[in-house]
């Protein structure tokens, strides 16, 4: 499409021009029982001790997220506590049933603590990047009006999102990953080209710069709206008052993969069904860590 025409046509990329919650990218191909690295083929090769073929169901809402629908009644109900979580595949819960996922465990703990009904909106998606989180943040804050917002920045900084002329969203994974999937040159030539371009431009510098800009943007927006929010990031940056400082008071001290116990391979509790993502135990510990941090920072806060 000519550049001028591209600039003048109305955009369909929700989250960039529109305030509504955008639909999850249709290109992600999230199945009902299998999704990306959590594949049937991988399961046959290496069955999981805890989860069988039928143990996991990826139930998505109308917008394509693994959470309840974004109902207007729920958003406007003052008696409810609204929890919104943005993140990557760990937040989506790849290879885990929904009830073992840290987002829902955190919601249960908040419910128990506050005595209020908690609605947990999980906007995490597999292969999501910090750019995705930055794009989603404005509609998430203004449309869902969270009482508590948690940003779980992906631990790998190399993920990116791109758009094509038809405003489709492409998620690209960092190069050099063991389980990286490239789009087929024949079945998806456009995805293939975008992925190749992504790999040719990828570098540690770009990843760091992109992540830090997205983090700074998210911090500014959350503080501007005065909401209760916390975040977790992998260890990067000085952490002090340097040029790359993070807001330590809102930071959860650990990321989810730190809770994976290296020696425990027998029980199946450490890793999810795809043997790549965190399992039951790390999710439980992470939910506890986020909850403790929330209580320490905000007390009962809006839960009161």
């Amino acid at each position, binding site marked *: 499409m000519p550049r001028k025409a591209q600039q003048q046509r109305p955009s369909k*990329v929700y989250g*960039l021009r529109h305030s509504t919650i955008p639909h999850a990218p249709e290109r992600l191909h999230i199945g009902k029982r299998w999704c990306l690295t959590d594949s049937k083929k991988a399961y046959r090769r290496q069955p999981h001790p805890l989860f069988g073929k039928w143990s996991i169901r990826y139930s998505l809402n109308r917008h394509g997220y693994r959470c309840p629908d974004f109902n207007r009644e729920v958003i406007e109900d003052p008696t409810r506590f609204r929890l919104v979580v943005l993140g990557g595949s760990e937040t989506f819960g790849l290879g885990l049933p929904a009830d073992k996922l840290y987002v829902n465990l955190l919601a249960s703990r908040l419910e128990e603590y506050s005595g209020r009904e908690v609605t947990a909106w999980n906007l995490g998606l597999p292969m999501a990047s910090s750019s995705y989180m930055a794009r989603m943040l404005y509609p998430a804050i203004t449309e869902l009006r969270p009482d508590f917002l948690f940003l779980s920045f992906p631990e790998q900084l190399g993920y990116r999102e791109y758009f094509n*002329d038809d405003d489709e969203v492409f998620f690209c994974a960092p190069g050099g990953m063991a389980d990286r999937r490239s789009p087929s040159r024949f079945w998806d030539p456009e995805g293939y080209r*975008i992925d190749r371009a*992504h790999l040719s431009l990828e570098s*540690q510098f770009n990843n760091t*710069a992109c992540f830090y800009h*997205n983090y700074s943007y998210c911090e500014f927006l959350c503080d501007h709206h005065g909401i209760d929010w916390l975040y977790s990031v992998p260890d990067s940056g000085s952490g002090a008052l340097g040029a*790359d400082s993070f807001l330590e008071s809102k930071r959860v001290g650990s990321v989810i993969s730190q809770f994976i116990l290296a020696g425990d391979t027998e029980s199946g509790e450490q890793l999810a069904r795809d043997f790549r993502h965190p399992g039951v135990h790390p999710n439980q510990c992470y939910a506890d860590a986020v909850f403790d941090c929330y209580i320490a920072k905000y007390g009962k806060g809006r839960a009161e």
Partner: protein
Amino acid sequence: MTDLPAGVMNAAELMPLFSDVAIPCTGHRNMGKCRWFGSDSERHYLSNRHPLFGPDDIEYSFNRHGYRCIEFDERERFDKDHLHLLTVGESHAFGMGLPEDRSYGYLVARKLQALTGRGVQHWNLSQGGIGADYIARVLPSALAVLRPNFVILNFPNRHRREYIFADGNYLTCGDGDQVAGSVHTAERHDSVRAAHFEHAHDDSNKFNQWKLFIACQRHLRARKAMWVAHASFNIPLRFHEYIDKGKVEPRTIMETGKAKYRDQPGLWLARDGKHAGVGPHADLADDTSAMFVREYAQEIDQLAVRLAGESSR
């Protein structure tokens, strides 16, 4: 281009990103002084002579890091009552085709000097052909190292995106053939431009620009610097609440004096015939210093009182 950057960079010169003790080098580091630079070429001058500036009237003087200002080590030698103005922007702010003392950043520094009664050092960290990514990358380090009292940001058009390679070099690609950066090989230009256009999306570029602008605001607020910005983009209504609109001038320098200098090409254009000349720079300097006074009258008064108290002690 007559003067290409002195050579490719290595990763150690660029790293660490967002350092609070060092400002990253540019491709023009160790370049010293030159008479012709970038689009301000001798070849262009010989075919299009400038009414005001001759071949010897302009000198581009770069510090060791490749910026058109004095060495960053000098910052520590200034007295406490000396003030500092930082400019980060594109080629107009760099002063392409103009002597340094006719660029608007320098003129604003002189106006602030007259206003406060203190010496004002101008740190010009602008570069030709850069995008918002460059500004957001350099600004945190510049704020930490130079500790400026005043900051001017000059945002270029949204299509420019910066890519940093694993070896520490960087390139900025625009919407046309324009490529600027620290490494100039046809092979790398072609591969980066191809990938850049594969990812080019107008909404994505716009969002990137707003996002980086807001990120810059976050850094400026954290450092409590007095700042204004020149940005040619239209910020969508829903983002207005995040932006200190009084501090943003939504026009480009070339838009300001087109009618005024129609009959005075010597004032209208710089020696390269592409960038703003002496007239628009002087006008923009007036507008910018007026913005500082309007937005920070109280802070400037307090600063003057505090410095007067410190110097009397």
